[in-house]
């Protein structure tokens, strides 16, 4: 073969394909501000890639919380200095968590949306005995097999999402004797969600017409839609995540399939990103700005004032976690992570902008809280681009224990390593 200088061109095309794939994993560095007497808190969340849209809301939420805490006197009179970075992927998340703890001496790390990255950060936090508040990872496994003493979960677990949406499905007679066709995101989150959904479905007398794994880079759902059309299920179930839900909903309506749709994982940004007339189904939700409690309205108003648009549920997660960290440290007058853990494990109560207060359950550190389901409005009833759905009353209902929707020890046991 001729080895002239240009002979590597064809091979460079292949390198191009590889580099194109690499484009998806490159992140952006953050600018670190330093303040000597401040208390540093680290924030890690995906700001690029398919979870990036949610990460943007997470960053807005944490910044608003820090503004408010600092305006109210900070933590024990010291200001919070927030160091926020793009977590990119599990490897980068782990490296950045190490650096935040060792170099920047943060007292806690808040954030994350990807369950895989969340696990990576949790391991670093556990090793260094530093708090990690998970604001967006849903996998039950993080609360069960992979639980640890320094990790707390403001985000609801997959089980809680399934229970919340499941109650609506039971009410509508969509489970017993019905055939489900499910599409599941083919990564840690999806696998975990599928397991929980399957448990719920079989326990309540439903069965799968089919359950299919969908790679996270699938953008064209047409082949799946043809299969669903031929399978004629009673219910189509989405265990997808992020932008994929937008694509799925848009194309489902494009093909005009007649089967009802429900999903077990959802974020409001997905619906806003699809837009009026492109959304359908019953979905679970952890919080929404339609909630009329005074604290919820205050948060929504402050958020709209600062950013010019309503907060998304991911903004709630990071806002809440930051508030809880500051409140707990102020209550015990210490920033020591181990002492905060002990305080929270005793069942400290927190305002979570919902009708009932929440608390972090002692044995798995999951925030016990009310959940909701949403039903999309008809296009004609939609007032503006943010007003796409109606919110159900809280699940569990007022008289019930908050724990009825959470996984039991038998379902998801956690033994905290020392």
């Amino acid at each position, binding site marked *: 073969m001729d080895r002239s200088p240009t002979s590597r061109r064809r091979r460079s095309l292949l390198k191009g*394909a590889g580099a194109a*794939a690499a484009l998806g994993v490159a992140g952006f560095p953050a600018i670190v501000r330093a303040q000597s007497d401040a208390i540093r808190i680290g924030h890690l969340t995906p700001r690029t890639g398919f979870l990036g*849209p949610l990460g943007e809301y997470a960053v807005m939420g944490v910044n608003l919380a820090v503004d408010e805490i600092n305006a109210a006197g900070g933590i024990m009179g010291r200001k919070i200095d927030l160091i926020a970075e793009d977590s990119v992927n599990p490897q980068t998340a782990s490296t950045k968590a190490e650096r935040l703890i060792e170099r920047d001496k943060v007292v806690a790390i808040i954030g994350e949306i990807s369950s895989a990255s969340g696990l990576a950060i949790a391991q670093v936090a556990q090793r260094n005995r530093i708090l990690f508040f998970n604001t967006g990872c849903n996998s039950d496994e993080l609360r069960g097999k992979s639980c640890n003493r320094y990790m707390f979960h403001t985000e609801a677990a997959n089980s809680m999402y399934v229970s919340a949406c499941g109650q609506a499905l039971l009410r509508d007679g969509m489970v017993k004797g019905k055939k489900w066709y499910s599409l599941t995101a083919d990564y840690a989150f999806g696998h975990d969600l599928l397991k929980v959904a399957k448990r719920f479905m079989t326990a309540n007398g439903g069965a799968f017409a089919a359950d299919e794994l969908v790679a996270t880079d699938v953008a*064209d759902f047409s*082949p799946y839609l043809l299969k669903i059309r*031929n399978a004629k299920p009673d219910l189509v179930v989405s265990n997808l995540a992020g932008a994929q839900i937008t694509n799925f909903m848009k194309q489902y309506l*494009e093909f005009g399939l007649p089967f009802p749709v429900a999903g077990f994982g959802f974020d409001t940004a997905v619906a806003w990103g*699809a837009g009026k007339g492109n959304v359908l189904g019953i979905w679970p939700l952890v919080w929404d700005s339609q909630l009329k409690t005074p604290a919820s309205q205050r948060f929504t108003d402050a958020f709209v004032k600062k950013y010019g648009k309503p907060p998304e549920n991911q903004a709630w997660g990071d806002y809440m976690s930051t508030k809880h960290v500051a409140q707990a440290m102020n209550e015990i007058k210490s920033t020591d992570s181990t002492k905060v853990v002990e305080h929270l494990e005793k069942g400290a109560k927190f305002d979570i902008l919902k009708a009932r207060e929440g608390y972090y359950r002692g044995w798995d550190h999951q925030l016990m809280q009310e959940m909701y389901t949403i039903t999309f409005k008809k296009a004609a009833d939609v007032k503006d681009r943010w007003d796409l759905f109606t919110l159900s009353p809280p699940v569990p209902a007022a008289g019930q224990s908050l724990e009825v929707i959470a996984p039991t020890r038998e379902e998801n046991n956690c033994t905290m390593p020392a």
Partner: protein
Amino acid sequence: MMLIEILEQVLNGLLAGAYYLLIALGLTLIFSLGGLVNLAHGAFYALGAYFAIKLADTLGFGGALVVSPLAVALIGLVVERLLFRRFYREDPALGLLLTFGLALVAEQALRWIFGAAPIPFSIPPALKGQIFVGDFIYSKYRLLMLAIAAAAVAGLWLLLRRTPFGRVVRAGVQNPDMVAALGISLSPYMASVVALAVALAALAGVLLAPISGVHPAMGTDILTASFVVVVIGGLGSFWGVVWAALIVGVVRGLTVYFFPPAAEASMYLLMVLVLLFRPRGLFGERIQRFE
């Protein structure tokens, strides 16, 4: 019944091939003539979609379909003049670095200007709905998409085969030194080719915006698959890319039918097989300077 379902997937796959086709054609054009692997091609696709959303408010979808690619072509001209032009004859690695950086800058710029959250956009009301042919179902919108993609492919083919412009471009692909020796400067041709290629990407962006999420990383998502189509089709081969796009669409559809978890992996497997047995791609021409 099963046979009908398989046939249905094959027909749908041919349609779905149009998904990557326009982007892959642009990639292959720029690479064949300039030797530049344009990793920023996805960014032009994303720009096309964002422009369409902004333009559709005033011009309607039809207007956006025309104006958005033209606007992106103008940006392409500027980028070509200021940046690409310096890298045609350089080590390909430099071109990779340049376009890799450009893609990052473009994605982050979109994030700054429009926000990271996806932006809603719908199929125009007149094009909503489905057409039923016997057992088969077709989305009206996708049929239109296919028609526009087919028209673009036909137009491009006529341009390259039947015009003096096309003759120079094809000669330039085969042997730029000879073209230069004949006293023809390839530089203005290269500018036109880049403008044309990014306009095709933008057209794809406009067409896909109503049926997929519009967000800053959308370009990166589609680029890898488009590269695979180019590699399978073979370098410098116009019809190779067209065939490869259709084959990838069909193979994906069939994999979804028989073994869904491997649906996306199937095209990479196909690429490996093609490279093993036909290193130049299915229809790759023997181009002296790339050997």
